[in-house]
C-alpha cells in the first residue's frame, strides 16, 4: 500500500500541469524565452502607411520613450514623420547627443525604412531589460525618419516598377526638355505590377538567342559567330512612346535624385544629373536640413540605402581632398567594427571605392556640419550564394545564372516573371518577362531580419561612440599669498570627439568651454595644459580666463587638461564643461 501510495503521489505530481514560465523581458536576439511586446513580422516589407503605423504602434507602447514630430510634407503631401526616441527621465533630450537615422531617400531602396523601424523596435523592446540599451537611451537620443521619400516608396509599392525605378521623388519634372512633365514613363504592358523586359521573336534576324539550358535566359549573339544571327531582339524595359516624340519611357514621374541635393560640394544638373536647380530644392530635403541644422546635438548620422553591402563614408568627390586625419581614425574604427558586425559589407570611401557623388546627404552632414556620418548600402547579393568561388567556373558561373539558381532553388522560381506574349503599339507581338521588382536590390523574405538586426546593432555601436564627457577630481594647489592653482582634467570616454576635426577646422557650431564659477572666486589666469608634468607648458587664454574656449573640443577617448589660477574668499566653485555634442558636465570643488 505504501508503494501504491508513493506511485500515486508520483503520478499525481506528473499529472499536475507545469506552471507556465512567463516570457523574459526584452528581445535581445535570442530565440527562446522572450516575447516582444510589439510583434512585427520581419520577413516582409511594408508600404508607407504601414511603416507609419508600425512606428505609431511602438510610440503607443512606449509613450515615454518615443514621440512623433511632424517634420514636413512630401511633394505629394505625405507627412514626413520624424520619431524622437530617448529617455527623458534623465533630463531633456535636447541636452544630450543625438543620432540621426533615416532611410529610403531613394524610393525604391525600401529596406532602409524597415531598418529604421527595426532599430526603434530593438531599442524599445530592450529599453528596460538591457542595461546597455537603457543607459544609451538615458544619455542619448535618436532622431528617426524611416522614409525620407514616402512618395517614391508609395509608388514603388503601388505602381508597376522594377528594382531600380521610383528612386526619385514625385515633383513633376521635364526630363526630356520638351516642356511637358512626366508624360512618358514606363508602361506595364501585361498589367502584372512589374516593369520587366520586352523581347521580340525575329527568327534569323535577332541579336539574342535563348540559352539552351534555360530558355528564360537571353544570350547575346557574339559578333564573330560565322554570320549566324539570333532569333530574338531584346527591346528594353516595358513601355512605349507615350508622347510620340520617338523616345520611349524617357520622362517618367519625377526624375531627380534627392541624394544629390545637399549643400556640400553640390553641383548642378549639367555636372550631375538629378541634382535639381539648387540645393535642397525639394521640400523633403529642405525640411530635413532645417531640422538637422537647428539641432547641434546631433553627433552621429546613418542614412540607409540599398544595395551592395557597403559601409560608406565621404568624401563623395575627389575634389574635396581627404577628410581630417583625426576624424578618419574615428571613421576607420567604426567602419572596421561594422565590417565585423556585417558580413558581406565593406567599409568604403564613396568617390574612391564606389563612384563620385556631389551633394550627398552624409557628405553634407560631415563636411558641412562636422558629424561622423555613414551610409549603409543594405543587402549584398553575395548573400544569395556565399561561396561564389565554387560556382565561378561551373554551370552557375555568371551573376545572372547564379541569381536564377538562387531563384529556382530557394524561391521556387517566384522571383522571375516568365515571358508572356503581349501586343505592343509599335513592335506588334512581343513577349514580356524578367525579374520582379522585389528581387535583386532587396533580400528575399527569409534574409530580411538578419539584415535589419545587424544594421540596427551597427547603428547602436555608432551611437555608443557619441561623446560622453566627465570631469575628474580636480587637484587644488595652494601657491601662497592667496593664490591657488586648480588643475582640471576633462575626459571624453567615447570614440567620437566633442568637436570633430572638421568642425574645428571649419569653425562649425559653438566651441566647447570649460569654465570655473564660484562666489567670491576670481580667476586671474587660465589655460590648456600641454604637458601633465610641466605646468609652465600652458596655452593661456587671452581674455576671460574663467571661461576657456576649446575650438578642438575634447578628443575621442581623450582628455583636456586645464589649469585655473585663482584667488578669493570663496570656499566652493563649480567647474563646467559645456558643448553641443554631449551632455554638459559639472563638478563642484571645495577650495578650502
Amino acid at each position, binding site marked *: 500500500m505504501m508503494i501504491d501510495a508513493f506511485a500515486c503521489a508520483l503520478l499525481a505530481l506528473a499529472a499536475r500541469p507545469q506552471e507556465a514560465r512567463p516570457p523574459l523581458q526584452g528581445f535581445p536576439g535570442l530565440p527562446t524565452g522572450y516575447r516582444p511586446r510589439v510583434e512585427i513580422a520581419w520577413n516582409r516589407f511594408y508600404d508607407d502607411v504601414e511603416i507609419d503605423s508600425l512606428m505609431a504602434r511602438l510610440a503607443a507602447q512606449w509613450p515615454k520613450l518615443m514621440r512623433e514630430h511632424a517634420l514636413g510634407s512630401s511633394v505629394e503631401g505625405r507627412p514626413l514623420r520624424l520619431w524622437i526616441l530617448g529617455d527623458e527621465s534623465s533630463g531633456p533630450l535636447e541636452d544630450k547627443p543625438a543620432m540621426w537615422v533615416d532611410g529610403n531617400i531613394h524610393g525604391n531602396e525600401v529596406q532602409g525604412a524597415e531598418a529604421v523601424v527595426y532599430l526603434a523596435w530593438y531599442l524599445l523592446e530592450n529599453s528596460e531589460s538591457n542595461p546597455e540599451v537603457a543607459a544609451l537611451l538615458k544619455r542619448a537620443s535618436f532622431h528617426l525618419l524611416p522614409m525620407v521619400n514616402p512618395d517614391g516608396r508609395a509608388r514603388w509599392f503601388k505602381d508597376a516598377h522594377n528594382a531600380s525605378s521610383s528612386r526619385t521623388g514625385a515633383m513633376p519634372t521635364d526630363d526630356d526638355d*520638351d516642356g511637358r512633365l512626366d508624360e512618358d514613363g514606363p508602361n506595364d504592358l501585361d498589367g502584372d505590377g512589374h516593369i520587366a523586359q520586352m523581347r521580340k521573336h525575329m527568327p534569323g534576324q535577332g541579336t539574342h538567342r535563348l540559352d539552351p539550358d534555360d530558355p528564360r535566359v537571353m544570350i547575346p549573339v557574339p559578333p564573330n559567330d560565322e554570320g549566324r544571327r539570333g532569333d530574338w531582339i531584346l527591346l528594353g524595359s516595358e513601355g512605349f512612346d507615350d508622347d510620340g516624340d520617338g523616345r520611349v519611357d524617357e520622362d517618367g514621374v519625377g526624375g531627380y535624385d534627392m541624394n544629390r541635393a545637399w549643400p556640400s560640394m553640390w553641383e*548642378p544638373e549639367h555636372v550631375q544629373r538629378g541634382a535639381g536647380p539648387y540645393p535642397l530644392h525639394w521640400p523633403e530635403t529642405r525640411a530635413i536640413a532645417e531640422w538637422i541644422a537647428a539641432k547641434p546635438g546631433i553627433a552621429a548620422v546613418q542614412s540607409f540605402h540599398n544595395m551592395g553591402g557597403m559601409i560608406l563614408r565621404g568624401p563623395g568627390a575627389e575634389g574635396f581632398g581627404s577628410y581630417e586625419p583625426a576624424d578618419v581614425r574615428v571613421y576607420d574604427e567604426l567602419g572596421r567594427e561594422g565590417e565585423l558586425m556585417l558580413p558581406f559589407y565593406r567599409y568604403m570611401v564613396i568617390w574612391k571605392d564606389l563612384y563620385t557623388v556631389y551633394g550627398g546627404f552624409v557628405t553634407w552632414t560631415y563636411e558641412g556640419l562636422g558629424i561622423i556620418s555613414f551610409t549603409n548600402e543594405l543587402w549584398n547579393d553575395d548573400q544569395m550564394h556565399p561561396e561564389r568561388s565554387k560556382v565561378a567556373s561551373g554551370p552557375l558561373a555568371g551573376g545572372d545564372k547564379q541569381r536564377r539558381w538562387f531563384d529556382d532553388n530557394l524561391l521556387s522560381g517566384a522571383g522571375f516573371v516568365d515571358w508572356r506574349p503581349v501586343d505592343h503599339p509599335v513592335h506588334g507581338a512581343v513577349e514580356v518577362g524578367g525579374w520582379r521588382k522585389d528581387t535583386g536590390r532587396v533580400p528575399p523574405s527569409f534574409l530580411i531580419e538578419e539584415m535589419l538586426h545587424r544594421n540596427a546593432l551597427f547603428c547602436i555601436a555608432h551611437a555608443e561612440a557619441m561623446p560622453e564627457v566627465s570631469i575628474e577630481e580636480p587637484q587644488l594647489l595652494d601657491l601662497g599669498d592667496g593664490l591657488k592653482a586648480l588643475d582640471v582634467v576633462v575626459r571624453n570616454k567615447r570614440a567620437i570627439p566633442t568637436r570633430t576635426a572638421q568642425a574645428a577646422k571649419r569653425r562649425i557650431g559653438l566651441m566647447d568651454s570649460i569654465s570655473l564659477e564660484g562666489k567670491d572666486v576670481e580667476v586671474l589666469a587660465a589655460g590648456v595644459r600641454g604637458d601633465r608634468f610641466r605646468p609652465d607648458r600652458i596655452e593661456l587664454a587671452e581674455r576671460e580666463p574663467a571661461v576657456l574656449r576649446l575650438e578642438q573640443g575634447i578628443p575621442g577617448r581623450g582628455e583636456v587638461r586645464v589649469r585655473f589660477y585663482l584667488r578669493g574668499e570663496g570656499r566652493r566653485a563649480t567647474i563646467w564643461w559645456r558643448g553641443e555634442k554631449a551632455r554638459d558636465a559639472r563638478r563642484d570643488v571645495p577650495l578650502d
Partner: protein
Amino acid sequence: MTPFLALFLLLPPQSPVPDAASGALLDQRELQAACARLASEHPREATILPLVESAAGRRVDIVRIARGELKPGRPAVLVVAGLDGPLAWTSDVALEAARGLLASKDANTRRMLAQATLYIVPRADPDACEARFAVPLAETRAIARGGDDDRDGAEGEDAPGDVDGDGLVLRMRVPDPDGEWLVDPRDPRAMRRRDASKGEIGTHRLMPEGRDGDRDELAGEDPLLDVVLNRNFPQGWREHDLESGAWPTSLRESRALCDFVLAHPEIVAVVAYGELDNCAERPKVRDEWPRRSPSPSEGIPAEDADAMALLVKRSSVKFTGRSAGSDAGTFQAWVQSQRGLWSFNANLWSMPLDAEAPKVEGAPEPPPDLPEPGDDAKRLRWIDREKESSRFVPWRAFQHPDLGRVEVGGFAPYALVEPPQADRARIAVEQERFLAALLAELPRPRVARFAAKDLGAGLLEVELELRNDALLATRSRMARRTGGVRPLRVRLDLPSEATRLAGPAEAQVDLDGSGGKAELTWLVRGVDAEDLVVEIEGPQFVATRVEMEQAR
C-alpha cells in the same frame, strides 16, 4: 564740413513721398508707392506681383511690364536691382528706365513691349537697402545671423556702430607700429595698405567705427548679422563663409528669386544692377569645358561673350563700372553659369580713380620721388575736383571709451557707390536705352522656308528652314551646355491617315543669333502638301502653327 552736414547731404528728404523721376533715393515705403503709381499710370501694361516678404517683413515686389496678351512663351527680360545692400539707388534706376520705356513714343519700343515682357525687381534686398535710410547711417550688406565671427563664444557682441555720435558709421584709425596701414604721402586723408615687398612699415590699424564690447582691442569684428543676400546663391557658393549662409538659398529672398526664374522659363535674359559688371568690357571667356566636372566659377563660351559685347555696343550705352568683388554665390553667377541665361551685369557707377591731382594755384609741386597715390587718394582727387566733399569725413581725434585715443573719419557710408544725383537721371535714361536695345535683340525664330517636293506615288519630301535674325541665339551656348533652357521643339503635324516615313517625330532645335538657321527634312505620304502643318514651340517662343499654304 561737419559730419552732421555730410549726413544731411547724403540722406534723402523723407517727405513728401518723392517720385523716382526726381532722382531722390526711395526708401521702402516710397519705393512701393512709386511702383503703385507706375502701375496706376499704366494700368494696362504695368502690374505689381508680390515675390516674397523679407525676414523683416518688407515686401519684395515684381513690376511686370507687358503690353497685350500674356501668351505662354512670350519672351521676357528680368531686371534685378537693389540686389546688393549698398546699392539701394539702383532701384530708382530700374523704375525710371521702366517708366521711360512705358512712356516711349518710339514705334519700335512700343512694338517690343507688345511682344516681350519686362519683369522688374526694383529692390531684391529691401532689408539691407533700408539701412540706407537709417540713422546712424551705416553701409549695410548682411541681413541674417551667421555665427560667431571672432570665435570668442559670443555672437554679435562687437558690431560696427556710431561711437562718436555723428550719425555716421565710419572708420577708425589707431596709430600702431604693427598696423597694416599707413597714411598715403600723397594725401594725408587717404590710407593705403603697406606694401611689405617694398619694405614699407605700417603706422596704423584701421577698423570699422564701433565699440570693443569684448575687450579684444578690435572693433566691429563681430556683427550680429553676417549673411549677405548676394552670396547666398548656388554658383560658387562658399561653404563655411559666414557671409554665404547655411546653404545656398537659405534666405527667403534668394530662394524666391531662384524660384521665380525657374517658374518663368520665358526669361531670356537677366539684367542685374549690382556690384558685378560684364558690360564695360567683353565678358570673361572660358575656353575649356571638361564634361561632368565641377561647374566652373567664371567665364562663358566665346560665342556668348561676343554676342553680349556686340549688344552692348549696339545699345551705344557707355558702361563704366568695375566689378567689385568676386561673383561667388551671386545671383548673377547662378543665372549665367547654371541656368545659361543671357546675363548682363552692370555696376552702374564706380567712383572714378583720378590720376591727376586737381591744380591748385600757388600750391607747391609734390616732390618727384613720392610713391604713386593709392586708390583712396585717387578717389579723393575726384571728390575734390567734383566738389563732392560730403563724401569724405575728415579724420578727427576721438577719445574712444574702449580703445582710448583714436581718429574717426574716412569715406562716408555709400560715398563710394552712389553717383552724384545728377548722374542718376542720366544713368536711368541710358538704361532705358539699353533695355530697349536688349528687347530688340531677343531671339526671333521664324519659318524661313516650309516646302514640299512631290516625289511621285504620293510621296512628299518636306523641308523646313528656321531662322533667327536677332543678335541673341535662341539658347546661349551656356544654356546648351547646362540645359538650363530647353530648346525649341518642332513637330510636323500630320493628319491621322498620313504616314511619316522619315524624319524626326519631334525635333529639338537651337538657332544661333544673327541669322542662325536650322533645317529639317521629312518624308511623308498620305497627305496633300497644302494640308501640312508644322508646330514650333519653345519656352521663350509663343507656340506657332504654320501651314504650308501660309509659308508660301
